[in-house]
Structures are given as structure tokens and as C-alpha cells.
């Protein structure tokens, strides 16, 4: 199953073989679904759903999207002086943490639920992070868009905020430390390698190699092998641009990653007149175009949440475009199939199992 969050609701796509897909009727109609994900612990669906009139919500469905329940009282405390702007990313907790769900939101905040999304409490440590006054909103607002939980260490987690950077917590979210060493902020010419303020676009933790994370940033593609202590810039060597938003990994191969570069910050469209997915299989030392079956010519954009990979033995890779197509590679980028077209602008792509 594919969960495609769009500007006009959530679409679920079903397939038995990852080649032929059926698009179900949309749900959460009228909502901008910034991100939707299936909780692998119980199969329920969560959606970070926003509406320009009625605000930011997180919603849960236990019947494959037929009906939804909105979390109660989602908002920021009045004494913070902040108001909730958008909900961005839902991250179900670990298998060992029943009921726990994390929500990333703007402006640079997180929430935690311990009752399967019925209610959420703001993460005070991030709300009151001492460096907050040095954070700047990116074009999409100051969004907490990436939440990554270490699969082994229950106290270890990482978040990405645009444009504050990457933060690590070693105490389950009670405190945070910026982890941006080696990550550029070229848009700050007076200090291009600051402690924080970097514009991370997407952050993913590899599930099988301790301490390895990948990052697509406003200023390059990066990898760390030491839990974010040091980041190595990986562009060049076949990658036409360091600028882009989405990122996908291969759960079996820690050295494999997929990005969709764009020309640059001033022209956010894929380069060379095609939809180009670039793949590395050597940890970012070299990149190759892996776009067989993707539009060429094409001038396309893929948003930060609109790329995903599944956990099957031969991993599939998935992407959605702002022009409303969903593409699937059932073989880690060797070929791509259009699973759906003429959808509204795709804001997020995740995979799951039809219940």
C-alpha cells in the first residue's frame, strides 16, 4: 500500500505486485496532508493534516481511512508566545513503546502522545531550547519535518528542523544538542559552518547500521557514521546538484541512498529537463542516474516527504511529484512504473500494508 498525502486529501494505492496499482477514493478531503504514515505496531493510519481555515491537526484512522479521529487540544501553551502553524510529520514510536507517537510541527516544535494519538503534549525541552532565538524559518516555515528513533537505544533520537539544523537527544527527548559539524550553511556568508541554523531538508537514520544517518540539505547531501558528530558532504561524482528535498534509503544496504536533485534554491526543478533519481551504492562516493521509466523530458519537483522505501526483501522505492504522479521502482531504482497520475500535488509518500 502507498499512502500519498496531497494538497487535496489522502490517497491510498493498493497493489499485490508493486507493478499494477489501484487508487482508492480520497479520504481526508479538503485537507492538506503534509504526511501520512501507517503505524507498523497496529496498522492504524496517522495523518498530519492542515487546512488554511481550520488550522493544524493530527488525525488517526483504524479502518484504513474510512473514518478519522482528530487529536484533542493540539496547540502550544499560551505562555510560549507561539501558535501552532502546521503539523508536518508523524513518527510512530518503537515496538517497545505502545501508544507512543511523535509529531513534528511548525514553528520548530514537537509533540508526544502516549495514548495512540488521542492527545498530544508539547515537548517542552524543544519548545524551550536555549538556541531557539537563533533559528530561522525556511520557505516552508520553521518545520520539524524529520524525527528518527534509534531502533536499539530507546533514549537516542534525532530531529531535523528547517532552518535550525539537526539535533540529537540521548535522553528520550528531555534535552537536545545541535549536531551539524561539517554541514554547510552557504546562505550565511559570514559563517558558512555555524553550530546551528543549517537548512536540513530531510534526515533519515539507517535502520541497520549503528550511527549512520543521511541528510539532504539545502546545501548538499551528507552522511554521518558517528551519530551526527561529523558530517561528510557527498555531492559531485555524478550528482548534478547538491540541492534537493527528498531522500530514501535501502533497509538492507547501508551504503545505498536515493535523492532527487533540483537545479538550486532559485530554480526548484529537476535539472537536465528530466525527472532524475540519483542512486549511490557506495555510501555517496559516486552517484548514478537511476531513472529508467521516469519522465524525460520533464521539469518536476518532489517534496521533502515525497520519497519512501519499503522493507521487502527486494526493496521498492517510491516517489510522488508536485505534478500529481506516483512512481514506483520495485527493484531499488532499476526501473520505474507510474502507479498513478493526475492526482493533486503530492506532499508525502509512505508505504504500508493494506489491512
Amino acid at each position, binding site marked *: 500500500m502507498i499512502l500519498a498525502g496531497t494538497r487535496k486529501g489522502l490517497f491510498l494505492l493498493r497493489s499485490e505486485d508493486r507493478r499494477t496499482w489501484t487508487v482508492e477514493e480520497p479520504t481526508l*478531503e*479538503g*485537507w*492538506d496532508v503534509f504526511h501520512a504514515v501507517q503505524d507498523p505496531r497496529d496498522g492504524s493510519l496517522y495523518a498530519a493534516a492542515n*487546512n*488554511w*481555515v*481550520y*488550522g493544524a*491537526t493530527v488525525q488517526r484512522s483504524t479502518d484504513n481511512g474510512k473514518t478519522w479521529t*482528530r487529536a*484533542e*487540544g*493540539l*496547540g*502550544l*501553551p*499560551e505562555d510560549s508566545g507561539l*501558535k*501552532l502553524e502546521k503539523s508536518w510529520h508523524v513518527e510512530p514510536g518503537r515496538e517497545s513503546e505502545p501508544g507512543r507517537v511523535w509529531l513534528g510541527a511548525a514553528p520548530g516544535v514537537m509533540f508526544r502522545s502516549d495514548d495512540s494519538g488521542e492527545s498530544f503534549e508539547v515537548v517542552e525541552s524543544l519548545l524551550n531550547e536555549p538556541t531557539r532565538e537563533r533559528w530561522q524559518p525556511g520557505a516552508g516555515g520553521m518545520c520539524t519535518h524529520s524525527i528518527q528513533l534509534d531502533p536499539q537505544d530507546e533514549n537516542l533520537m534525532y530531529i531535523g528542523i528547517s532552518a535550525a539544523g539537526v539535533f540529537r537527544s540521548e535522553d528520550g527527548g528531555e534535552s537536545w544538542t545541535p549536531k551539524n559539524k561539517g554541514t554547510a550553511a552557504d546562505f550565511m556568508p559570514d559563517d558558512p559552518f555555524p553550530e546551528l541554523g543549517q537548512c536540513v531538508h530531510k534526515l533519515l537514520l539507517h535502520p541497520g547500521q549503528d550511527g549512520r544517518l543521511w541528510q539532504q540539505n539545502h546545501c548538499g547531501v551528507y552522511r554521518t557514521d558517528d551519530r551526527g558528530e561529523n558530517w561528510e558532504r557527498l555531492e559531485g561524482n555524478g550528482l548534478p546538484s547538491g540541492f534537493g528535498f527528498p531522500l530514501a534509503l535501502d533497509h538492507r544496504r547501508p551504503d545505498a541512498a536515493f535523492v532527487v536533485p533540483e537545479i538550486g534554491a532559485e530554480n526548484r526543478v529537476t535539472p537536465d529537463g528530466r525527472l532524475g533519481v540519483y542512486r549511490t551504492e557506495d555510501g555517496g562516493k559516486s552517484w548514478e542516474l537511476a531513472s529508467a521509466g521516469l519522465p524525460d523530458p520533464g521539469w518536476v519537483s518532489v517534496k521533502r516527504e515525497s520519497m519512501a522505501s519499503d522493507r521487502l526483501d527486494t526493496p521498492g522505492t517510491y516517489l510522488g511529484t508536485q505534478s500529481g504522479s506516483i512512481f514506483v521502482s520495485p527493484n531499488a531504482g532499476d526501473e520505474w512504473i507510474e502507479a498513478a497520475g493526475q492526482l493533486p500535488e503530492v506532499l508525502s509518500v509512505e508505504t504500508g500494508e493494506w489491512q
Partner: protein
Amino acid sequence: MAVVLLPGLLATQAGGKNRFEVDASSVAEALRALPISDLIFDEAGGLRGLVNVYVDGKDMRTREGLDTPLAGEEEIRIVAAIAGGSCSSS
């Protein structure tokens, strides 16, 4: 009892019900009694900027706003402001 009418998206969020009878002495009290009050008020308690409210066909801002008193027979209609064409709405 005053009657509150919801637009389609709010009705969906209210479990499919678009008409609520409320016993309230003001517009604010009537709106806060709705199961979707969190969608029309922000966390600080303010009415969201693009939510318009009409009482018996009159924009409540031409009366006493949220403090508009209710005698008990009014029809309150919630209407989303016209925002077509903006990047975030279209």
C-alpha cells in the same frame, strides 16, 4: 435553543453532523460547545482569522461579535472566508 450550521468539512469532522442545537447565551458560548471548537478557535482562544460567523444572516461583526447575545431561536452559520487563489488555499 439556537441552531448552529456547519460547512461540509467541519461536519465531517463532527462525525457527519452539520446541525447542532445549543443552549447558549452568546455566540462564543454556542461555538465553544461544538465538538469542532478546536478547529474554529486557536489554542489562545481566538477565532481563527478566516472563520466567518453569521447570526440570522448577519455577519456577527456587525453586531457584537462573539459577545452577541442569543435569545435562543437564532440560526448561527459558520462560513469559511473566501480565500481562493492563494498559494496555500488553491
